């Protein structure tokens, strides 16, 4: 067989609610390929893109096509948690490594037995990590004041918010929400947040913590600035102001402090190259964590494929991925957690500031490294 080219499947949302994220991830991956002569591990890459759409209903057929028609040796991308949850069972059956570059769900055990994660990797993070990372900082800021927690009513929202509230309360913080439970807003149907925000204002919180993404993020930030909460500091998981939503939010977003594993203003050289290449490729705005994680997924495959000799099979590639070791990345170097199979990485506090003409998530300080080994 032909050992000089490999087929890689990239499954991202190109239509539907998450198309923006999908676009970014595709750009990130392609950017790595273009900056590395279209090769990964010395092999020409035949990249086959599939549309994840709005969720498993469209994603699984596409994944099946990539796996069974195109016989890819690795599958990467995947925007939605539900999608990863379903596709993961396919890739595991087919013994093809899945290198997820965005959401990583909890992989709840089915029928009592835990899920087999031998072929599942992520270059991103667990949905609850942003919250865990920022909780201590917020606690320090509010002292013994209370924090109001609000988020979207779906699995991603639960994880993101749980990460914060659990850690925050463990550190002795108190939630301003009545009955001390996070407020969840119907998703994606909620587009009018004003009533929630005014309600929240009545609890006189010292700060607000939230997580939204996409259209909801735009509406939330804009209406936050119009609500009684306007002067209350807003902390958030970085997606609230990540990427294109920031331009839509405009000035209303300035001053929001948020946490993420990446900021385009990170000083390390790899990042500077990355950002330069990004704008050189003619993409508007600054690179996002989505693009960066996908870029890293390419890097992982690059190193792993280099380690495979002869014909590339799913098994060989998977073992190789297990041994890639340290990855040099725009977010700062990281490596896979031996059991968790996701990056052990630093988390950063960022603030939305005018950076020249455009708004940007400017690095404020390092927070912590997660997951702790």
């Amino acid at each position, binding site marked *: 067989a032909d050992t000089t080219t490999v087929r890689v499947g990239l499954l991202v949302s190109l239509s539907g609610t998450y198309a*923006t994220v999908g676009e970014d991830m595709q750009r990130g991956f392609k950017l790595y390929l273009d900056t590395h002569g279209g090769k990964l591990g010395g092999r020409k890459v035949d990249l086959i893109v599939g549309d994840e759409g709005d969720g498993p209903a469209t994603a699984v057929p596409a994944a099946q096509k990539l796996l069974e028609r195109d016989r890819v040796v690795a599958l990467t991308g995947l925007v939605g948690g539900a999608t990863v949850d379903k596709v993961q069972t396919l890739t595991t059956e087919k013994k093809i490594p899945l290198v997820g570059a965005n959401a990583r769900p909890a992989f709840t055990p089915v029928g009592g037995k835990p899920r087999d994660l031998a072929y599942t990797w992520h270059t991103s993070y667990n949905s609850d990590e942003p919250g865990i990372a920022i909780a201590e900082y917020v606690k320090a800021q509010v002292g013994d004041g209370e924090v109001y927690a609000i988020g979207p009513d779906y699995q991603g929202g639960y994880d993101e918010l749980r990460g914060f509230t659990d850690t925050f309360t463990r550190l002795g913080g108190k939630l301003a929400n009545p009955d001390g439970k996070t407020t969840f807003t119907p998703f994606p149907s909620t587009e009018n947040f004003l009533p929630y925000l005014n309600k929240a204002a009545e609890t006189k919180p010292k700060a607000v913590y939230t997580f939204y993404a996409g259209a909801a993020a735009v509406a939330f930030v804009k209406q936050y600035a119009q609500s009684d909460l*306007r002067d209350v500091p807003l902390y958030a998981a970085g997606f609230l102001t990540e990427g294109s939503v920031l331009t839509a939010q405009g000035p209303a977003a300035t001053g929001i402090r948020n946490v993420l594993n990446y900021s385009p203003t990170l000083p390390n050289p790899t990042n500077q190259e990355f950002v330069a290449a990004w704008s050189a490729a003619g993409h508007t705005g600054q690179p996002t964590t989505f693009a960066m994680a996908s870029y890293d997924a390419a890097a992982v495959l690059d190193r792993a494929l280099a380690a495979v000799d002869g014909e590339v099979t799913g098994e060989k590639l998977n073992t190789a991925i297990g041994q890639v070791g340290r990855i040099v990345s725009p977010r700062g170097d990281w490596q896979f957690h031996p059991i968790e199979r996701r990056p052990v990485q630093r988390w950063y506090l960022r603030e939305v500031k005018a950076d020249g003409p455009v708004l940007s998530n400017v690095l404020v300080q390092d927070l912590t490294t997660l997951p702790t080994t």
Partner: protein
Amino acid sequence: MSEGRGAVRVDAYLIPVVDGVAYGLLLAIAAAGLTVAFGAGGVLNLAHGTLIAAGGYIAAATSSGTWPSLAAAVALAAIAGAAGGGVLAAATAGLRGRGHLDQALLTFGVALIGGDLLTTVYGPDTLRPRLPATLEGTVEAAGHRYPVDRLAVLVIAVLVVAAGYVVLHRTRAGRLIRATVDDRAMVAGIGVNPRLVDAAVLMCAGALAGLAGALSTPILGVGPGTADTALLLSLIIVVCGGLGSVPGALAAALAVGVVQTLGVTSFPQLAPYLLVGAMTVVLLVRRRSLPGQAAA
């Protein structure tokens, strides 16, 4: 002390209600086009949401924070909507007498195509037009802030609804529209070309949809999801309000608005169910005295 608490309690309901009314009126504008097309004109136009989205995108692309650009945005959106309505009129003209389901199939197809084109042209991001500074701001009312843009929409909505009521219920045009739905042949029999009525209805509906898009985008933004949400809410409002009745639609819109504000905050755990639940209840209890629903 006790007085203070009293004040709090009043606000606790006052502000959400005000907001509910404003939001409801916003929805009323969104539904206005569908009331004309489906409620009065009998065309089940599932492309309504897409027309709204189109209006929104156009407004977002045109309005640059100055008053003239805002005016231009609104006008352009309405015109584009009317054009879209014209296309739909041409498309559905051949389907007369083939029942609502075929219309649904066609307009849904058009909606999908239109949606795809919109995202191809404007990209998948959520857009929001820049407004003149005065509109972006907020006003103080009873110790609370309230966004100016919503107040503006509130006013416009009242105008649109009033106009709609007069036209549909008080003018010959309105009667012709309803008559055409009931029995086209007899409308032709009094010297009016029913096809003209259809075209006029759909173009007005389209213009209203475009306008609605332009007005709601500054507040809610416009993105790939906009069309579906707008269509669903509009359908609920039009049907709950009783097909073809402007006062009914207005009442329904306000109800939805209040449910979506006061309701969701008062019963957070029920929030997901409230809207659809409310609609179901309304439909179940309301007497089926709609024209066209009358027992034969």
